[in-house]
């Protein structure tokens, strides 16, 4: 059945009658069933999600402050939904459960492909020239260099599978510099799931080499949570664009004309260091979809996007 036809069938109400029939069987719990099929348009509050690239503790407490700021500036009710992964953030964005999201480079591209017309409106100051560090255990002969290291035969761990700085860009530079696919280079490939995990595992020697978000590394060094006599930075990637705020295409339609523009302005004007520390970024600057074309072509090149 073609999509159009079936959507019409859904809207015609036959579907609901049928559902209604089913409901009478579940008399004991009509509550759940009715709630299940409440139309999406009932919730008219503006909802956003964000996963910071480091320190995910106390998410709700921290980002509810951001929500409060946005609420005061925008004049609509603003909510924050915590998520666990980039993929979950993309799903929530696509399902219209959130209208605004703080995405990584790759997840932003994925989300904008799934929701045509959605826009990247602002990025962190640091995200204009983000980079990844390659780190190696001290037991390896690898030394810091500006030339790409010869990684043949080592074990290697990425960060999370959907991470731009922990997976996408490192894999791209490895494959471009070594001229073959990662599975033909390393004896073992892992996905640690998190930048701080990557550091811990390379420090412990569970993997010999790893790729990590440069900011997470610098924080770990500053806090003393990494023993730099056991693990060191051996190479850094060229700069690339990373985290950004992306808003859905239909935001203006739902929250009034000029909403997106106003939202952009409010985000760029967020100056409170306490709020910015949650991301953590020093400030936000303008961005648009075109800024992320390099990310899209890199993702296509290594087969993460079709």
């Amino acid at each position: 059945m073609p999509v159009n036809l079936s959507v019409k069938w859904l809207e015609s109400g036959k579907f609901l009658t049928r559902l209604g029939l089913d409901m009478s069987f579940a008399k004991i719990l009509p509550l759940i069933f009715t709630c299940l099929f409440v139309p999406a348009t009932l919730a008219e509050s503006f909802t956003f999600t964000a996963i910071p690239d480091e320190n995910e503790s106390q998410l709700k407490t921290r980002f509810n402050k951001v929500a409060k700021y946005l609420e005061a500036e925008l004049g609509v009710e603003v909510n924050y939904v915590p998520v666990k992964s980039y993929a979950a953030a993309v799903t929530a964005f696509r399902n219209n459960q959130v209208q605004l999201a703080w995405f990584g480079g790759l997840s932003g591209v994925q989300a904008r492909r799934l929701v045509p017309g959605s826009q990247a409106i602002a990025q962190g100051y640091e995200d204009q020239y983000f980079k990844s560090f390659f780190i190696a255990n001290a037991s390896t002969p690898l030394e810091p260099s500006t030339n790409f290291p010869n990684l043949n035969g080592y074990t290697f761990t990425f960060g999370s599978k959907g991470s731009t700085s922990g997976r996408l860009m490192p894999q791209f530079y490895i494959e471009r510099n070594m001229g073959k696919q990662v599975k033909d280079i390393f004896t073992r490939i892992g996905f640690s799931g998190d930048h701080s995990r990557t550091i811990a595992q390379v420090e412990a020697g569970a993997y010999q080499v790893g790729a990590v978000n440069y900011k997470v590394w610098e924080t770990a060094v500053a806090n003393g949570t990494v023993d730099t006599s056991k693990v060191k930075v051996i190479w850094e990637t060229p700069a690339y664009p990373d985290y950004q705020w992306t808003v859905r295409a239909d935001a203006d339609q739902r929250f009034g004309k000029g909403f997106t523009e106003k939202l952009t302005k409010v985000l760029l004007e967020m100056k409170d260091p306490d709020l910015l520390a949650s991301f953590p970024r020093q400030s936000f600057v303008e961005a648009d979809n075109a800024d992320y074309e390099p990310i899209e072509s890199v993702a296509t090149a290594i087969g993460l996007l079709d």
Partner: protein
Amino acid sequence: MFNFVGPWQRLTLGLWLLVGISLLFVDIDIISLDPWGELLRMGQGLLTPDFFATESLANALWQTVSFALLGVTFGLLLGSPLALVYRSPWVAASCAMVRGIHEIFWALLFLQVFGLSPVTGVLAIALPYGATFARVFHDILQQAPSSTKETLPIGCDRLSAYFYGKLGHVLPLMLAYVRYRFECALRSSAVLGFIGMPTLGFYLETAFRQGKYHEGAALLILFVVLIGTIPLWSRRRLLPLYLLAALFTLPKLTGVDLQLVWQFLTFDILPPGIREVIHGQQGLEQGLTRFASWWQRLTLEQALPGAAASLVLAVSALGLTHLLALLGHRFASMHSRGKFSMPLGQLLLLIMRSMPEYILAFIFMMLCGPSMLPAILALGLHNGALIAYLLTRQDSLVRPSEQYQRRGDHYGFEVLPRIYPNLMSLLFYRFEVILRETAIFGVLGVMTLGFYVDSAFSEIRYNNAFYLLIVTALLNVLVDSLARRMLAKRLNQGMAVGQVSCVV
């Protein structure tokens, strides 16, 4: 010639032959050079747990209970009627497929449809649990003696006959099983936090992943206490109250965009090629070629290697589980320890079986590196402890002779033979569970089928995920039917259901 080797010895030998074969292929390198720094941080965390580091902790605890409660309730609503028609091979097969997919993957699927809503979490528990209830209740009902029915007065209506003649016999068994599944549901509910449900797992996973061990240890302690105190707070009379409270305190439900659901079902999860043909965007021949190349690549590069790795991991873990269950029972049984020193063994078993395998694997990963070893150890410890615990509950029925002494030889001749059939049937039943649990280790990075499913979800390739999930489910159906057939030969009717006879 081998007449002195009894059926149980043969079954055990067969099991270990299988384990031996899988050990040939298993990847159990110990790699970690210097895990002590991280282990020290973990140890410090465990010694000084921080119970105030987690936001909305009380809510997370309650939601863990609430999701489990609702999941089991809906599972019962679904499973009980299905149990009556379970004889149909179609029902049995579809239930086995539903069971074969881990809760976490059900949740990831429902996430696409219902979003981050409690419906996602409750359904992710209810569906596989319902399928399990269907099978186990069917098995239990079969155990009911048929003689009572014949003594009922003539003209007795079918419903009364059913209630008095059949259900009455086995109801205590069924209730005991439900109680046991509730404990499992608490664990599942916590694990669903890993993908975003507001349960304990949400914070537990973050804390361990980001190295916040003080917080992680506190959450882990709370979780073990929650499971250990089930008999204290889960009174039958309070259950309706809890259920109502669970319904009313559910997190906000989100709306469902039916158009997106439709698109998900009729486009997103269909294989490339096929979906273009259905929607008229591509010719039949072209579409089929595209589909064939997609299918071939996915099968050869992901499905087959993933299935092989899952099997090797599960069989190796089964061997370890067998050993640890024997050891654990020897250590915690009242027939080898006496009533007074038994509690120590019981406490150890409680800690081991309530610890989510994920956390265990995580700690072992630090100790011995990213091979299959951490996963095998975690699965073996968890399931071994669980089986040992169930066996110690069976102990009260075992009455050794007057001459019995708490010594190895007496134990070996009097207690072990009585629990061994139960141990083996539990073990074979747990194999299905172990195989399903390999999914979790896929998410952690061991290259099982779960790894590829997780990758497909994070690359937003739902059709790949869907295909791999079907393979996972089929593998489970196959293994389950083989295990049941092997066991059925050796067990009489009453024992064939394994997991049931031991929860009482």
